[in-house]
């Protein structure tokens, strides 16, 4: 009996030892390096979101380090895969903060994973800059309290909902909207809520709201029901291109000809592949667009280097990195070292800092980027086309 216990005990202690060694190894590193964490969906069905962004960040950091890093510090990017699950995102973020001792974290990209990180970032006093999590509760919780260490570089759903409603009512002249919403996604519910508020304020009416759960593939029941609701506009604020692709195909199969409207969750070239024809003439809101002229040469360079197409998620990630560059520089000027709290303060008071897509100004009370433009796009013979740009002032 003893022989077995001995062997097993030794096995268990070996595992623990290996773990400790691994932890030690990655914790140290030359003192003149600043570590930035990046947590994104690198595998699984939504890997299209994380992949391009990771490559874009690595390119930018190579440039920075070649030019001497940020205020003399070489930059190191540590990225973890969250497999589009909130629990994994939390564990990965904790690992970045506690073990890798990063000064700040970029990502996660979607609201469901970003919202719970508020209290965690505050406890660890480490700023987190989410890239495309547009739900309002990411930076301000339900009862209005600001999450001090949470920031974002994309516009927020209220503004996206507002812009869409305004465009649908005034430009498209639609009066009776129906919704098919992913009730399990904070992002979808957010857009539905703010769109309805603005649309009804303008005099429109929401005739029917149908729900579904994420990862559903069957929408015929909802589409058939909506088709009979006398709608002239079908708003489908899906969190990923997959849902809208399926809904559009099934709507076509059921002979429903209606004007589609959606949010920036649609943005992925795969959507054009699977439902480009069915969504001809649909409109959607998006942050910045890969089609806008000023990014064409960057896209070309990126495509040549990685033979993968650049995505909007990459632009937002770069915005987050630029914001951190500014904040780290300010922190070094003020406190002579790269300090998490100093970086946070710099982010909060950032005014017209150089960004990738545009100048970055952070609203101190809500930690949302100030007047980030919303671009309204349409799908014309299976390609994105920019139609109009909304900026928050008007």
């Amino acid at each position, binding site marked *: 009996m003893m022989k077995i216990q001995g062997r097993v005990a030794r096995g268990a202690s070996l595992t623990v030892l290996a*773990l400790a060694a691994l932890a030690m190894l990655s914790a140290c590193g030359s003192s003149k390096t600043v570590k930035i964490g990046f947590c994104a969906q690198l595998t699984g069905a939504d890997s299209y979101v994380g992949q391009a962004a990771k490559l874009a960040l690595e390119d930018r950091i190579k440039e920075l380090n070649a030019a001497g890093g940020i205020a003399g510090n070489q930059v190191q990017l540590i990225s973890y895969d969250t497999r589009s699950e909130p629990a994994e995102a939390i564990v990965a973020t*904790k690992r970045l903060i506690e073990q*890798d001792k990063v000064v700040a974290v970029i990502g996660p990209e979607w609201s469901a994973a970003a919202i719970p990180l508020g209290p*965690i970032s505050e406890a660890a006093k480490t700023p987190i800059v989410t890239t495309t999590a547009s739900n309002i509760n990411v930076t301000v919780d339900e009862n209005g309290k600001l999450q001090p260490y949470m920031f974002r570089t994309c516009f927020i759903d209220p503004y996206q909902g507002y812009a869409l409603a305004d465009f649908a009512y005034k430009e498209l002249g639609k009066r009776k909207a129906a919704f098919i919403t992913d009730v399990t996604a904070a992002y979808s519910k957010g857009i539905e809520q703010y769109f309805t508020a603005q649309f009804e304020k303008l005099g429109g009416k929401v005739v029917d709201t149908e729900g579904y759960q994420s990862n559903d593939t069957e929408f015929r029941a909802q589409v058939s029901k909506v088709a009979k609701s006398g709608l002239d506009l079908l708003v489908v604020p899906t969190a990923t291109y997959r849902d809208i692709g399926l809904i559009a195909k099934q709507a076509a199969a059921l002979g429903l000809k209606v004007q589609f409207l959606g949010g920036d969750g649609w943005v992925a070239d795969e959507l054009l592949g699977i439902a480009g024809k069915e969504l001809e003439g649909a409109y959607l809101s998006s942050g910045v667009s890969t089609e806008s002229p000023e990014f064409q040469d960057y896209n070309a360079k990126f495509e040549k280097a990685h033979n993968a197409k650049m995505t909007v998620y990459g632009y937002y990630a770069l915005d987050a990195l630029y914001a951190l560059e500014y904040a780290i520089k300010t922190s070094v000027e003020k406190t002579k070292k790269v300090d998490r709290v100093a970086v946070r303060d710099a982010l909060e008071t950032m005014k017209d800092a150089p960004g990738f897509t545009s100048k970055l100004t952070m609203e101190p009370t809500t930690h949302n980027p100030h007047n980030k433009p919303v671009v309204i796009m349409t799908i014309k013979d299976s390609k994105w086309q920019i139609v109009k740009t909304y900026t928050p002032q008007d």
Partner: protein
Amino acid sequence: MGYLTSILILGCINIVVVLGLSVLTGYTGLFSIGHAGFMAVGGYAAAIIYIRLHVPFALALPLGGVAAGLSSYIIGYPAFRGKLRGDYFAIATLGFAEAVRLLLNTTYPVIGGAYGLMGIPQKTNLPIALAVALLAFAGAQSFVRSQHGKNCVAVYDDETAAQMMGVDLLRTKLMALFISAFYAGVAGALYAFYMAYLSPSMFGISKSSDLLAAVVFGGMQSIIGPVIIAFVTVALPELLRFLLAWRLVIYGLLFVVMMVFRPQGLLGYRELDFGPGWRRATAAVASRLGKPRPPRGPQGPVEGTP
């Protein structure tokens, strides 16, 4: 070192639920692929009574376990009365766990629904997790050696013979399920107070099948084996994190290899020692054999039984 403690804490939490599951699957032979459902019930129950009813953390933990244990009767009672066995019972537990997860998904305004329940303070730290794990381990060891525990093994080995020897099948199975659900509930509560956040998607099918695999790999009718594997299944994915998608392929192939080449798992069917009680008894027999005595006929029923 924060990260290492988080692996140790998550390891302890996994150990607690795997200990409960090894009583149900390893010792009583009832396979469940729905134990994430009981974890969810325990986690949400503990979090809600803590936040809404201000029940102290030390009480919320066991109460979470009790809630999960009681919920096990919803599926257990009809299943065992209907003599559900093998695949059927496993699929029934899968159905139960998915129903729990989907139900939680639709509770948005009340307890956060699919967006998750926030506002849970982070109470679970390493000492608490270790203490609960040790307590669970001692409890499981003591249970499997008890008369109730042996009855479970009898139910696994031969239900009909066990019944003939006076074992109440329904009560024994419900007891084993209650224990495993209670352990899962406590583990769920520990998890809730560690992550400071709960979302239904944390308790999906993949979590349940990981737990079942931990018991089967650890070895049937063994406590130590599943405990080691329970810890490894938490540490390994973190270690293999750099392998990204490949780790799921390796993980899947590991299932097949283990089942084909070492079905009894790490330490299956091999209890490491019998514990003190045993040594005293054999000594007593040895001393009596020394003195020749006419073999005493079996007395009537032992006093104390009705």
